[in-house]
C-alpha cells in the first residue's frame, strides 16, 4: 500500500504569517485576538476577532491579479507559497497531471458578498461587479493555487463548515494512497471578518464577548469559558507519496497515516459523542494504531459551552483510561476559530509539535471544569518527543474529520 508523507507546511494566521512565527507564538501562549480593525465594529456586541495584523494585500499580489482574489483566496495562496517553498519541490511538466490541489472553506467569499450586497441593497446599485462570481466561489482557492503552481491533477474543493480543511486533507491523502496522484497541496482558508458574518455568528450565541480583554476571550476547557472567537487565515500542506519524497531526498515532517470521517445525523448545531468517536476510531484503524499510541490531540476545542464537554466525552469514549494521560490542547485559544481553515492550521500545529518535540498549550486556562477533565496542557508548552498525534475537526452540521499523523522514525 502506498504511504503518504507531509513534505511542506505553510500557515498565514493571526498568530503568525509563516509557520515558524506561528508556532513560536503558540508555544508562548500568545493570542492573535484583538479588537476588529477591518471595519468599525462599534455597532456589534462582539467587537473582537483573530485578525491577521497589518495585512496589506499589495505586498503579496500585483494589482490586476488582486482584483480577482477575495481575502480567503489571497490567504490560501500565501500559505501555499510557503508550503511549496518549504518542500523544495520543483514540479516537472510530466508530473503536473499527477499533482493536484484540495482546499476547504466554510464561508468562501464572504467579504465580496458583503460589500457587493451592500452596494445592491443599501446603495441601490443596479449591477454587481463582474468578478463577483469568480471571487466568491468555494473553489477559487483550489483553482488559483492550481493556476499558480501548474497543478493539473485531481483537484476539488470541500465545504463542511469547521471540518472543511480536515476533509480536504483527508481527501488529498486518499488520492495519493490510492494512486491517483503523487503530489498534492491540501488545506483550507477562511476570511469571515465582515460585518454581516459577525452579525450572523452573534445571533447563534456561541461567540465569546471579551471586548475588554480580547487576548483572553477564548478559554477552551476552562469552567469560565464564554464561547469561540472567529479567526481568519489559511493552512496548506504538501502531501507526497512516500517513495516520491524519498527519491528526491525531501525533508519529511511526518506521515499521514489515518483519516476518519463520520456524520452525526442528529442535529444541525448540537454535537454528539458517537459521531466524532466513530471518526477517531476510523482514523486509528486506518493507521493501525492503538489508542494508547496517541500522545497528543489537537482538539477541536472551540471554547463553547457545548463543544468542550462533548469532546471530552468523545475522547474518554475512544481512549478509555488513556484519555486523562493524552495531552489535549486547543490552539484555537490563540488563533481563534478559523472555521474552514481550522483543520489545516491545527494539523500544521500538530505536525510542528511532532517535528520539534514540544506541544503548544491551551492558552487562557483559568479554572478546571469537572466536565472537561482532560489534561489540556494549560497555559504552558510542554516538551516531549511525541510520535503520534491526531487533529480533530467537528463541524456544525455534524460532519466530523479526524487526521492521524506520525513521525517516520
Amino acid at each position, binding site marked *: 500500500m502506498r504511504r503518504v508523507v507531509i513534505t511542506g507546511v505553510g500557515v498565514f494566521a493571526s498568530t503568525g504569517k509563516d509557520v515558524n512565527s506561528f508556532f513560536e507564538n503558540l508555544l508562548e501562549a500568545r493570542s492573535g485576538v484583538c479588537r476588529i480593525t477591518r471595519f468599525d465594529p462599534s455597532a456589534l456586541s462582539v467587537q473582537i476577532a483573530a485578525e491577521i495584523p497589518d495585512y496589506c494585500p499589495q505586498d503579496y499580489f*500585483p*494589482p*490586476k491579479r488582486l*482584483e480577482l482574489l477575495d481575502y480567503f483566496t489571497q490567504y490560501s495562496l500565501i500559505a501555499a507559497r510557503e508550503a511549496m517553498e518549504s518542500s523544495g519541490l520543483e514540479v516537472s511538466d510530466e508530473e503536473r497531471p499527477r499533482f493536484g490541489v484540495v482546499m476547504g472553506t466554510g464561508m468562501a467569499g464572504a467579504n465580496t458578498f458583503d460589500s457587493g450586497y451592500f452596494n445592491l441593497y443599501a446603495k441601490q446599485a443596479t*449591477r454587481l*461587479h*463582474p*468578478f463577483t462570481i*469568480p471571487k466568491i466561489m468555494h473553489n477559487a482557492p483550489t483553482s488559483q493555487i492550481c493556476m499558480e503552481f501548474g497543478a493539473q491533477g485531481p483537484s476539488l474543493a470541500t465545504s463542511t463548515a469547521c471540518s472543511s480543511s480536515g476533509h480536504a486533507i483527508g481527501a488529498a491523502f486518499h488520492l495519493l494512497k490510492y494512486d491517483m496522484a503523487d503530489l498534492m497541496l491540501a488545506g483550507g482558508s477562511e476570511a469571515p471578518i465582515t460585518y454581516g458574518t459577525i452579525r450572523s455568528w452573534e445571533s447563534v450565541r456561541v461567540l465569546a464577548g471579551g471586548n475588554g480583554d480580547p487576548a483572553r476571550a477564548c478559554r477552551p476547557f476552562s469552567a469560565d469559558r464564554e464561547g469561540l472567537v472567529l479567526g481568519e487565515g489559511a493552512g496548506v500542506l504538501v502531501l507526497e507519496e512516500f517513495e516520491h519524497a524519498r527519491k528526491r531526498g525531501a525533508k519529511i515532517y511526518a506521515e499521514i497515516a489515518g483519516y476518519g470521517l463520520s456524520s452525526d445525523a442528529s442535529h444541525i448545531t448540537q454535537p454528539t459523542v458517537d459521531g466524532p468517536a466513530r471518526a477517531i476510531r476510523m482514523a486509528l484503524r486506518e493507521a493501525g494504531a492503538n489508542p494508547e499510541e496517541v500522545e497528543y490531540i489537537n482538539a477541536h476545542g472551540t471554547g463553547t459551552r457545548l463543544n468542550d464537554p462533548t469532546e471530552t466525552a468523545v475522547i474518554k469514549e475512544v481512549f478509555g483510561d488513556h484519555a486523562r494521560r493524552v495531552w489535549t490542547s486547543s490552539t484555537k485559544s490563540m488563533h481563534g476559530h478559523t472555521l474552514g481553515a481550522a483543520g489545516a492550521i491545527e494539523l500544521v500545529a500538530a505536525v510542528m509539535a511532532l517535528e520539534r518535540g514540544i506541544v503548544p498549550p491551551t492558552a487562557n486556562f483559568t479554572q478546571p471544569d469537572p466536565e472537561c477533565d482532560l489534561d489540556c496542557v494549560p497555559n504552558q508548552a510542554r516538551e516531549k518527543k511525541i510520535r503520534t498525534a491526531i487533529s480533530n475537526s467537528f463541524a456544525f452540521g455534524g460532519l466530523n474529520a479526524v487526521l492521524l499523523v506520525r513521525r517516520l522514525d
Partner: protein
Amino acid sequence: MNVAEKIIEIIVREQHIEPGKVTLDSTFAELGIDSLDGVNILFALEEEFKIDIPDSVAQNMKTIRQVVDSLTRVLEGKDISDLVELAKGGAPAANT
C-alpha cells in the same frame, strides 16, 4: 476629454497597462484582453457613463474603435438596431 480619450483611460486603468499602448486601432486580442477582462471593462464603462450596454452590442466589440463608435451612439441616444443586428450569433461574453 472626449469620449474616445475617456474610454482609453478606463481600459488603461482596468487592464493595468501603459497608457501609450492603447490606440483606437488596438484590438482586444493585441492588448491581451480576454473574455473576463472584457466584462470587467464593460462594467467600468457602464459605471462611468451611467449607461447600459446590451449584451448584443457588447459581443460585437473587438477593437477600441468599435467600443468608441458603439458607446458614442449609445450616449447620443441614437438608434443602434443595426449594431444589434450585426452582433446576432456572436460569441457569449464569457464562458459559464
